[in-house]
């Protein structure tokens, strides 16, 4: 399991570890602790996994779901925050990269109390195959 990219970037947390996208139409991460969220320096990178990642949906999308320490109801959900073009992504090729937005949270009730996030990728199961990785990176 890599904890450093080829360019030297340190991986903070593994979001998805070589997960197969051949089943289901979405994958949701575990709760990820993000005490550094409000620094604005947390970045998510999706990459092709051990087998070619084929995304059939154009576009696939990524949701970001914010939670407080209690892990109760979501404080905020940013649906379809980014899009990912359909296509074939070989091992290590970047599907998408984005910073976890946080400034919008100041306009949301309890938006200053986010402690966890979940990352969810949505796609069409039919025609999708292969594996992908996703990492949380501190920049």
């Amino acid at each position, binding site marked *: 399991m890599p904890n450093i990219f080829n360019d030297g970037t340190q991986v903070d947390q593994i979001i998805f570890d070589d997960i197969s996208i051949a089943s289901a*139409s*979405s994958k949701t991460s575990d709760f990820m602790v993000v005490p550094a969220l409000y620094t*604005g320096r947390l970045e998510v990178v999706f990459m092709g996994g051990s087998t070619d990642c084929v995304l059939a949906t154009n576009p696939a999308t990524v949701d970001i779901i914010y939670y407080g320490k209690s892990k109760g109801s979501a404080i905020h*959900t940013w*649906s*379809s925050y980014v899009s990912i073009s359909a296509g074939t992504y070989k091992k290590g090729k970047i599907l998408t990269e984005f*910073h976890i*937005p946080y*400034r919008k949270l100041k*306009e949301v009730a309890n938006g200053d109390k986010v402690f966890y996030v979940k990352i969810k990728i949505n796609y069409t199961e039919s025609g999708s195959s292969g594996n992908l990785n996703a990492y949380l990176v501190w920049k």
Partner: protein
Amino acid sequence: MDNILRDGTQIDQTVFKDLDLNETASPAVSDYIVVPALYTGNLHIEIVAKKECEIHGEEITPPAEAGHTVIMNWSIYTEEDLMLDIPVELTYSKIIAQYPDGEEEITQYEDGALVTPQAIPTEKNIIKLTFYQGDEIVAIFNLDEGKGNVIKSEDENYIIRIVDEEETPVYDIWQWDAKIQLAYEDTIELFPYIDIEYFDREKNSVFKLEKYVNIPIGVYSAGTIMSEFSLPFKFLKNIENGNKCYYVKISLNYVNDTSSGKLNAYLIWR
């Protein structure tokens, strides 16, 4: 011209200034923005409503059978909890879920009382749900072969509605925030979105990243953030001349006829 946001954030450059959503044809494209600091990863864009904004995206008609679809063979697999809206007339004391590799009781109680609605925590395919009252089976729902299943969206929740041969609803399974591609409505409104085009010093296009971020449809009061995102750069290493980007252009794609208000967009160094 604003050069500082209310929280003290310094603005590096203005991307859009007083962009009138109704009067500006889509896409609204910025001028060339000089981004020598692109490869630091510290450049961010923030789009803020200048006056109250209402923004909308393109409406499309879903393919195939708009309105509803019928799936004859299907199964459920999700990493989210499914919520089972159980018919009120069904009295039961226990629910057994059958998975491909076995079965498990999933009934949820709180202080000895049944929780309503029942959540089905699963990361497996559900084949069958069997409802018991004591030791007696009172209902069986086969989830791997529907008799005719309508997928419907209501109040932003997505519902898998199980119907009988007469299309009479039998029961619903629904999931918050699920993305089911086939919607009940005749049309679907797509999100407004942002493209980023990268250019070299000679202003030759290097790459256009289409539909990078989406902007939630809706009304934004003055001063509220409509979108915030960083300028991605890591992926450029796999693009020819991806290491030579010097300018970017930001394109805002939306439908101007149904949108209104004014917005600003800023480039921020952080």
